[in-house]
């Protein structure tokens, strides 16, 4: 079993290296074989690199993205026809498909026979607590692992068409494979430090992929920002791991959780709070979230895989993994809840005013991750994990569908779309399912998962402060009643805002008149099929939750949430309907700029952190040269001066030597006479 799990991780890992080193060679070999067989040379043989087309080179807000060459959308689907000769794509897709199959087998086994399977390959001695190179598979890991594999597979297939003419597709596919392996390592790791390894490798893959179009300095900056902000959170994460590991005497997750009852409360609270820093960084929660909207500079499939469905969910996953430790530290759960409330409402408001479709989705990701965090804060662990999975499906769908729209329209800007429902029917229906799930409309998946979180918050708010009531319902962590109420209310309000921004984006994309000048048609087949396929789980995944009592819909919370959703959606529709050519967000007035700039946090961080660090760096360089080094070099001058002073005595004049000698004798004689 554990062998299968390790193979699941190893496959994409090896594929990354194989793809990077051998991908192109494989393409050449395959073309060479295919050409004689085809009789006549195919005109589209990928032997010469085609000119780089950059579909979404992160337009600065208000700018226009370059319109991609539309000719390649015409005619038969080149990417699909080229696939059998596309070495990097074959390596990436085959390995991911195999890994998916293995993850499926693992998940089925765990489902049929629940329980944790654990295996340790070896122990690495460190001089103190050993590191165990070990993996584990339980229900949580198997489920999330399967989701990761499926989304990664979808993204790999989609990318073949999306990046068909990108000269660096080879390294792109390899990094996606490496990312998949790292994420699977996080999911299946049985040791905290091993988990940390996967955690950081995901970060560097994210860096490389955000900066995929590095010709543009803006993308490069976005990549650096994403890595540094998450790395800042990871400082806390690593120290939190130390605290747990040293406290428990083992880094193995099972061992740490077993030791939770014996750990002092202070240690647990400190450790979990430190872990939260890493979670906030990776899962883009306030105050470390500002990297995620900028990360949209990466190619859209990357946004779907890393910055929506999988990596950003890793933070939530880690809390779920270590949930008993968090449960025993209610202060940390309270902090998590407050962070979630701020992130949820703030980013939903920011999403209302974005002009860039991808940034709308990015802020909605922060908001939805905050839902999961809120669920964890109120003790609704199952609901939070359920939302993680459904969100993975529908957010991947939304991003990939958005990628199709962006490729066709040649722009990220909502203002350039309009009326696409007729020309891109498959994308339209798929995205409709996605938005419905995002808002939480029945009967699609998001409804069930969101509802169970809201119900959990309601339950926590209702029971908070009441001790020993003998409540038979699910236990609630010991967080203050005020926090529980705040979470409950924020969840409901955010449903309304979510409905508003989703409605706005949906209407501006698919309804009204087409505003940009492009030839509207469905995206290449590989992309459209993938999007259509993802619509299926986004629609039906919710029904799988009916098997568990805590995941079934509840009348009160469902009713309230739907009311809020109806209100938000209707408001957006009415505003839009007055003038379909205008952006409904314009009606926000001066607030629009505030929301669009996401409450000026970036500016604040630049003033508080970036500039002081730069100033300190310059000061150090000056201090090093003028202070420390001048001191060292100065010693040369001092020795020379000292030598010069001493040289004066050595005049070579015998008379002065003799005078000195005599003077000495006189002094000594006088001293002897006086003292004795």
């Amino acid at each position, binding site marked *: 079993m554990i062998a299968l799990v390790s193979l699941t991780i190893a496959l994409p890992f090896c594929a990354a290296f194989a793809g990077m080193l051998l991908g192109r060679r494989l393409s050449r070999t395959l073309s060479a074989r295919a050409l004689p067989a085809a009789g006549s040379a195919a005109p589209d043989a990928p032997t010469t690199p085609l000119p780089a087309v950059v579909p979404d080179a992160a337009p600065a807000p208000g700018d226009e993205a370059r319109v991609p060459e539309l000719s390649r959308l015409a005619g038969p689907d080149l990417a699909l026809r080229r696939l059998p000769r596309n070495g990097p794509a074959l390596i990436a897709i085959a390995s991911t498909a195999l890994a998916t199959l293995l993850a499926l087998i693992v998940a089925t086994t765990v489902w049929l026979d629940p329980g944790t399977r654990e295996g340790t390959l070896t122990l690495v001695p460190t001089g*103190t607590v050993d590191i165990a190179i070990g993996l584990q598979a339980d229900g949580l890991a198997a489920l999330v692992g399967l989701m990761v594999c499926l989304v990664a597979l979808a993204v790999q297939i989609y990318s073949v068409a999306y990046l068909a003419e990108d000269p660096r597709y080879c390294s792109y596919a390899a990094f996606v494979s490496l990312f998949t392996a790292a994420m699977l390592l996080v999911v299946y790791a049985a040791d905290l430090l091993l988990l940390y390894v996967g955690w950081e490798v995901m970060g560097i893959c994210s860096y490389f992929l955000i900066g995929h179009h590095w010709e543009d300095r803006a993308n490069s900056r976005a990549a650096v920002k994403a890595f540094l902000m998450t790395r800042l959170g990871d400082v806390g994460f690593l120290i939190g791991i130390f605290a747990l590991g040293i406290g428990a005497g083992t880094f193995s997750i099972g061992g740490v959780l077993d030791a939770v009852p014996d750990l002092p409360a202070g240690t647990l609270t400190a450790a979990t709070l430190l872990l939260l820093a890493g979670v906030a960084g990776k899962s883009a929660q306030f105050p470390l979230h500002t990297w995620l909207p900028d990360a949209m500079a990466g190619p859209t499939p990357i946004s779907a895989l890393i910055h929506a469905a999988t990596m950003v969910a890793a933070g939530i996953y880690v809390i779920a993994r270590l949930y008993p430790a968090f449960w025993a530290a209610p202060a940390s759960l309270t902090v998590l809840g407050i962070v979630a409330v701020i992130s949820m409402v703030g980013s939903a408001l920011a999403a209302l005013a974005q002009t860039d479709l991808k940034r709308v989705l990015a802020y909605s990701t922060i908001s939805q991750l905050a839902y999961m965090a809120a669920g964890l804060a109120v003790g609704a662990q199952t609901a939070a994990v359920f939302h993680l999975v459904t969100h993975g499906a529908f957010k991947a769908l939304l991003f990939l569908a958005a990628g199709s729209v962006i490729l066709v329209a040649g722009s990220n800007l909502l203002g350039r779309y309009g009326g696409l429902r007729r020309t891109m029917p498959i994308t339209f229906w798929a995205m409709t399912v996605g938005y419905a799930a995002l808002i939480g409309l029945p009967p699609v998946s998001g409804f069930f998962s969101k509802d169970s979180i809201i119900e959990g918050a309601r339950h926590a708010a209702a029971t908070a402060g009441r001790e020993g009531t003998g409540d038979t319902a699910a236990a609630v962590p010991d967080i203050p009643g005020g926090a529980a109420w705040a979470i409950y209310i924020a969840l409901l309000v955010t449903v309304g805002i979510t409905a508003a921004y989703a409605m706005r984006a949906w209407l501006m994309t698919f309804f009204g008149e087409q505003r940009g000048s492009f030839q509207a048609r469905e995206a290449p087949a590989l992309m459209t099929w993938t999007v259509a396929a993802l619509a299926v789980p986004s629609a039906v995944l919710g029904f799988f939750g009916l098997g568990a009592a805590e995941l079934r819909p509840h009348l009160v919370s469902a009713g309230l949430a739907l009311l809020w959703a109806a209100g938000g959606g209707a408001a957006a529709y009415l505003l839009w309907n007055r003038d379909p050519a205008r952006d409904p967000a314009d009606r926000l007035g001066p607030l629009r700029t505030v929301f669009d700039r996401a409450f000026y946090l970036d500016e604040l961080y630049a003033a508080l952190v970036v500039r002081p660090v730069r100033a300190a*760096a310059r000061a150090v*360089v000056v201090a090093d040269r003028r202070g*420390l080094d001048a001191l060292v070099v100065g010693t040369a001058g001092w020795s020379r001066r000292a030598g010069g002073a001493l040289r004066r005595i050595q005049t070579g004049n015998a008379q002065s030597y003799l005078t000195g000698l005599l003077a000495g004798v006189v002094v000594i004689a006088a001293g002897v006479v006086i003292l004795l």
Partner: protein
Amino acid sequence: MILLVTLAIPLAGALALLLPRTRFLPDEESVRRYGAAVTGLVLLTTVAVAAAFDHGDPRRMQLEVDWSWAPAIGLRFHLGVDGVSLPLVVLTALLTFLCSIYTLRHPPAEGSARLFTGLVLALQVGMLGTFLALDLLLFFVFFEVVLIPMYAVIALWGGPGRRAAAYKFILYTLLGSGLLLVGLLLVAVNAGTLDMVALAERHGHGLTPAVQIAAFALIGLGLAIKVPMWPLHTWLPDAHTEAPTVGSVLLAGVLLKMGTYGLVRIALPAAPEGAELWAPWLGLCAVIGIVYGSLACLAQRDLKRLIAYSSIGHMGFVLLGIATLTPVGVNAALFGNIAHGLITGLLFFLAGAVKERYGTGELNALGGGMLTAAPRLASFLTFAAVASLGLPGLAGFWGEMLALLGAYRPAAGLPRETFVTFMAVGALGAVLTAAYFLRLLATITHGRTERPAGSVAALTRAEYAAWVPLVVLTLLVGLWPKLLLDLTTAPVRALLGGG
């Protein structure tokens, strides 16, 4: 006996170059090939040493050579390897060999290849001897042997400011050597032995606390200059910036390690009470070095200077590990030594290649777009930078992580709060490390360039031959840290007086 051969080969190789030019290896090309052959042979012998080494018992000194040298003062010619020195010995031989391979096609600017090869071989004798010596005076002798060839390499083949840099290097490190010698003699006279194994077994028995405190301060200061520890580092940026590529690689890859190795091998076990007193101060200088080095890199405009300052930061982690006086911390130091040797060695090779192709190391003059103009070179640079910023799964991570872990719970007699503060500051320094390396990559590899694709000379075979082993080892050690930790853990426990 094989250890003696390891030392004898480069020594004989260097001496043979004293033969008249007309009789032996008349042209430069053959001298360089000769250099590669000799260092290759040394590498093979060290691999044989690693194979002959009993990995089941890395605590024990193995393959010892122990001859009386000057009985009047108890000086012995005593060599041996254990788990602490074995990785360093192999690293030294490897880096010297890779430098020789690199020199085959990329010789330093002008001057006699004969002299250069001879100096590198002499340097190798000193470096290997330092890691093999088990007698205090013998250690000192080898330690000093290294100085002169390196001085000559910088002074003869360096950049425009080479004279000043070479003087600063040799005078500053000689000052350190003076302190080191006094410290070593203090220990030797009071303990009545020059034998490092015996001293380590005694753990300071027979030395009064005052002697131990003085000895640790002297030895520590002397070695700290070599490491270099903040604030004694100012010779390093100049030496690195001016030195030719091969000089920089060996300086960063091996010479700096002699300082930290000496601390672990001599200062810690021989003067444990002194270590306990000075450890918080050592830790303080270490974390200041981490942050200071990183900040200096952030505002640096020259590629080689930047890498030099990054060394100060990385050696800060190594020193922090030592300062914790825990097995995990010292393990971290030894791991960090090897990782830094591999990664920074690679970085200096790359900096040399960039300078050779672009004619400058100024970041602004290099401009951007190296990934377009020289994709392979830029990819190597990206790999090395990412490895150097401590990405898990690559060699740099484990040393840093374990040093922080050691600082989280330092040895019993040390102030815990102080070290936890060090840990937090050091961890933030690691973020700064990431910041300057990513800034470096963004500045020179990203962006557009006027140079058309392929206008910069492609990588040569010699370059691949020199760099690929470093890349592979960085990956191997990073993915399988057990390789080194299995070797060092047991002897480190013994050196610290534990079981």
